[in-house]
């Protein structure tokens, strides 16, 4: 690898989505999280799940923030972990689709309840649980969209929100 760098880095904090393919073995998530806590990196969200049961591979999606120098470090540190197969910076490497899933519980009766349902409809959110005085909405979308929805639900009786954190994949036909 040969990379060029200017002498003075602009100390600007950026956010990146990093995808990592790892062996699905005990302790691998602890290694990743330990790396962030041990080295003081900022982590916005992290999701992990098995994606290939034959090869026993899991995919981790991390949203990390830091200066460009720190972000390069994060990727390099990932890369030197023994069970890591591949590290890819989805933000830097080209366009990607990033989505989050959220479950949002809203309690209310009367006009507020109707309004919550109406807004959910506008956001193309689905009702996955309902009682006389509550709903659980399911929605996927960008983090911004989920933020906006949760904000709107606040005065309408928001009880709980639960989010997966971002999962992301590069656009186009190429694999990771």
């Amino acid at each position: 690898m040969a990379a060029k760098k200017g002498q003075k880095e602009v100390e600007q904090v950026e956010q990146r989505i990093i995808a990592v393919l790892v062996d699905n073995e005990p302790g691998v998530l602890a290694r990743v999280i330990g790396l962030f806590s041990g080295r003081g990196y900022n982590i916005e969200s992290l999701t992990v799940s098995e994606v290939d049961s034959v090869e026993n591979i899991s995919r981790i999606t991390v949203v990390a923030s830091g200066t460009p120098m720190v972000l390069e470090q994060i990727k390099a540190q990932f890369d030197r972990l023994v069970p890591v197969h591949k590290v890819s910076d989805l933000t830097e490497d080209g366009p990607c689709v990033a989505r989050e899933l959220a479950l949002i519980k809203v309690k209310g009766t009367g006009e507020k309840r109707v309004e919550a349902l109406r807004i959910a409809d506008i956001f193309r959110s689905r009702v996955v649980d309902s009682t006389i005085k509550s709903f659980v909405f399911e929605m996927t979308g960008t983090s911004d969209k989920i933020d906006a929805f949760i904000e709107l639900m606040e005065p309408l009786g928001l009880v709980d929100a639960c989010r997966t954190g971002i999962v992301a994949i590069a656009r186009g036909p190429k694999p990771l």
Partner: protein
Amino acid sequence: MTISVYEGLDVAKIKKKKNSGKLLTGAEIILKALCEEGVEVIFGYPGGAVLPLYDALFKQNNIRHILVRHEQGAVHAAEGYARSTGKVGVVLVTSGPGATNAVTGLTDALMDSIPIVCLSGQVPTHMIGNDAFQEADTVGITRPCTKHNYLVKDAANISQVIHEAFYVARSGRPGPVLVDLPKDIQINKAAYGGKPKLVHKSYRPQVKGDSAAIAEAVEMLANAKRPIIYAGGGIINSGPKASKLLGEFLKLTGFPCTQTLMALGCYPTDGKLSLGMLGMHGTLEANLAMHGCDVMIAVGARFDDRITGRVADFAPGSKKIHIDIDSSSFNKSIAVDLTIQGDCGNVLADLIKQWKAKKAKSNAKALKSWWKTIDGWRARNSLSYEKSDTIIKPQYALERLRELTRGRDTYFTTEVGQHQMWAAQFLSFDKPNHWMTSGGLGTMGYGLPAAMGTQVAHPKSLVVDIAGEASFMMNMQEFSTLMQYRLPVKAFILNNQCMGMVRQWQELMHGGRYSESYMKSLPDFVKLAEAFGAVGLRATKPSEVDDLIKEMIAVDCAVIADVRVDPTENCFPMIPSGAAHNEMLLGPADKAKGKGTEEGMVLV
């Protein structure tokens, strides 16, 4: 030492009957795998959770076991063994306290990139997580202080894991690997799978440098007016060939070369192209050359904070080329202009090849004037010190040690502190793998067990642990091990009766308030040696130093040499923390400057 030989497990015989499909116990498989990895010696300490392994060890005669007195000593001994031979050092400890005691050594090996495989016992699998007797979450505890670690939960996986552990420990940037082995796994039977031939599925470090980047480096170096080679421990790790190639490249270019603490020995420090060590206690010429260079090539070095001083003022305006096998070393604290990922030896070979192929030439005129400037700095003799006829200066003791060991195949280890820096400054180094010191972690108590491991690997050579009395006492129990195995290690204690480096910082930065840096009731080291059955020597006057050293070398036994040195002596030159390379303190007269900044105070 007597070892009874039993027929039970003759590994050489089993080797012949490879793939016989015979079932072996986990412990036997472990030893078989170790044999196949070429392991000759294990440093260890038994306990409940490794008894099956010790039983299997008892029944064979291929692998030697050195019984240490503390697990930390075992890891440092393995480090000394590994660093002085280039092989992987092997440690065997029991569960719980055995493993936690090994943590310091593992962290030390991680920081200094030393290949170690540490086998630890664990409570049986069905008891894991039950707070069983001598249970600790060893893989959890050692995750951040190893390069990688494993918990084996099935005897069928043992051979693969052990071989993989060796592969990971020695490949790429070397480091410690721990394998946690529950007791039932050591007893259960399985077939020995043999050494896997396949390449590792995910860990395949890049060892060959990118040729376009190397071409660019040649161009940058050929155009340099004030070049410098900043050589690091990666050159030693790459093997003796890398040191040879560095020498060849230096001869080819005539560039000045400075070495880090970890790199000492990669190029003769007495050589005319060597500027000696750089960094906090490096020479004036090395640090000013780093500060004033226009092109720097870092080879297997990592821009550690002891090297760079104040980052913002590190080698201002220079172009930097960085060769390293570990991409996470790039742009970590210092942004560089060109990175070449690969093994130092490989990249140096390619660099020389391309340099020759392109008929590149250094800028002779510029280089001449650069050397003239450097010689001006050299002439100030930054390592000079006030000599004395009445009190032993530590520098003097080391100078005499250097002269009286010249021409011998001497291995030096050190503890951590002033004596370590003086040893780096005043000894001469001309071969790789002959200098073992704790650079990254700065572990007091490293030197004696490291010397022990080195002596095990080189039984005929002179092995000297340069120590301070405080560091020495941190692992002096290993003297008992030295006696057991008749290892004639020489502990050369520069005894200033205080924690010298702590005292120095308190003098320079904390108004001379020597908070807890003096020890009362130090032992009589001569009597201590005698208590161990070793030889104790003492020198209190400069005139006694030569005789002490000569006798120390002549005695065919472990020695504690108590050299009573000037307790007030400080280690110079020094870059106070938070300062830049051109703000060095050259000697006691510069003390006023040493106060440093407030930002500097918070740095270690």
